């Protein structure tokens, strides 16, 4: 391992770079590559007063809210994509259980623009989206303004600079130069907008592998504070080329979190008791993991950089 290696365990990465009170971007690639293992480590380390930022997050935000880690959510959609509502989110917003949370409602595009402005180093990005909506009325980071170059009103989306972005990728070198492909969502802007980035990689590879295909390097290592090698780190969400989506896990979560007591049992089984990702994976049957694996590989054609 070279001296510039940023490789560490998930426990170290969260311990060092995600203190309570942080503004944390997760779920940047929407339904794919959600860094569940990172969020669950935050729960185990007892983080409090986090602001979670992400377009949709699927059930990761819901369980972190249920575990009491969160005081604010800045998102376009919070729930369970294939099964419906998120019960922990509902309990928190409707009944302050386990605590009160502030919800800042964005649309997908305005959240993407907030991160884009952060990535560009400008105070806002203009858009026509949300004009006339109650999102514009309720979210103070969306402000109407008169265009200085045309006769019209637009919405200024205030730049967002999260403290840390946690981005799941297929592969990275030990310095954090990362290849990701498939569902990009807001990952590229998200890493640039954030003050630091933690990469969760399915595989750590040699620097030469990354340099062989620089178009696929969407996050350069100098933005990255920590690199965690964590196979299956995104389960139950999918990682293109590595494993599929565990649909049953999402529908089970829906059934097993409807009541508060059941959610606590779910959390104990899947998050609190397993001390590491390895222990979490042993809770899943081997045949289940095998069934989620890629059955038929589909490699891209080689690009010639000669």
């Amino acid at each position, binding site marked *: 391992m070279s001296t510039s290696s940023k490789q560490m365990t998930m426990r170290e990465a969260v311990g060092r770079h995600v203190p309570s009170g942080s503004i944390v971007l997760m779920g940047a690639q929407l*339904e794919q590559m959600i860094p569940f293992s990172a969020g669950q480590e935050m729960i185990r380390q007892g983080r409090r007063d986090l602001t979670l930022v992400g377009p949709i997050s699927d059930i990761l935000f819901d369980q972190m809210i249920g575990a009491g880690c969160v005081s604010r959510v800045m998102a376009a959609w919070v729930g369970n994509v294939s099964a419906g509502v998120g019960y922990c989110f509902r309990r928190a917003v409707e009944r302050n259980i386990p605590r009160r949370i502030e919800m800042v409602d964005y649309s*997908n595009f305005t959240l993407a623009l907030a991160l884009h402005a952060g990535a560009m180093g400008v105070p806002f990005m203009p858009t026509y989206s949300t004009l006339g*909506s109650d999102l514009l009325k309720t979210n103070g980071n969306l402000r109407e303004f008169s265009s200085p170059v045309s006769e019209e009103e637009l919405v200024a989306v205030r730049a967002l600079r999260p403290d840390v972005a946690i981005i799941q990728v297929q592969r990275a070198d030990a310095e954090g130069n990362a290849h990701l492909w498939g*569902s*990009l969502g807001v990952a590229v802007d998200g890493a640039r907008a954030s003050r630091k980035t933690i990469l969760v990689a399915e595989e750590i590879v040699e620097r030469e592998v990354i340099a062989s295909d620089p178009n696929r390097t969407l996050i350069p290592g100098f933005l990255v504070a920590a690199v965690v090698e964590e196979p299956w780190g995104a389960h139950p969400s999918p990682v293109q080329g590595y494993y599929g989506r565990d649909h049953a896990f999402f529908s089970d979560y829906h059934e097993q979190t409807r009541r508060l007591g059941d959610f606590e049992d779910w959390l104990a089984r899947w998050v609190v008791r397993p001390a590491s990702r390895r222990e979490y994976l042993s809770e899943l049957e081997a045949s289940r993991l095998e069934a989620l694996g890629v059955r038929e590989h*589909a490699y891209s054609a080689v690009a010639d950089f000669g």
Partner: protein
Amino acid sequence: MVVAAAREIADGELVFVGMRLPMLAFLLARRTHAPHAIGLFENGIIRQTPSPELLYTMGDPPNLRGATECGQMIDVMGLLQQGRVEVGFLGAAEVDRFGNLNTTWGRRNQERQRLPGSGGACDIACLAQRTIVLLAHEPSRLVERVTHITSPGYGSGNRWRRTEGLPAGSGPSAIITTLGLLRFGSDAEAYLASVHPGVSVEEVLENTGWTLRVADELVETLPPSEEELAVLRELDPHHVWTRAR
């Protein structure tokens, strides 16, 4: 409902595809009358060929494999904001007489229920040339006035979108329900344009939360053709997304 939605897509159009029923409608359109329709997904995916497998989310690996492009969210949203996207599909908890949508706050037994929120719905409703709304026809869901405008339709009337600054040539084009199809008059209010086979006008009116106007030349929705039914059965063999009806 899915068949009526599919018929809203013309060949060659760019379509912002949502999940579940809109996804099925898009696939059905491509397999029948609109083989050159192109699908755009909020996660940045652009597809010219349908996914080979039934999807639960737009990020399922089969939706990325064989895609035309896997870009960023901002790329596809930019195309939408440019006005290039002809059709966008949306579901909703509530829609009102001017086509405004609410997916943020619901109500059950007098208690407010927090719903998941906009996702990309507000963006699509603001920016697509034609927005098609799909939902079950119930009086608690087709309401006089939504309590929260997550995604704007025609606001409170026909000049509202212009006044608010929304792009010209955008807005809701149809509300397709389990009972019929509503379109919008020149005053921007929804009216009943067709009823699905076996459904009476009275049934539609009873299940609508406002006094719904009925078209003078009301028609019956053309029933699904043999071809459409065959393709649907193939796309959703276990009726995960469609009921037998």
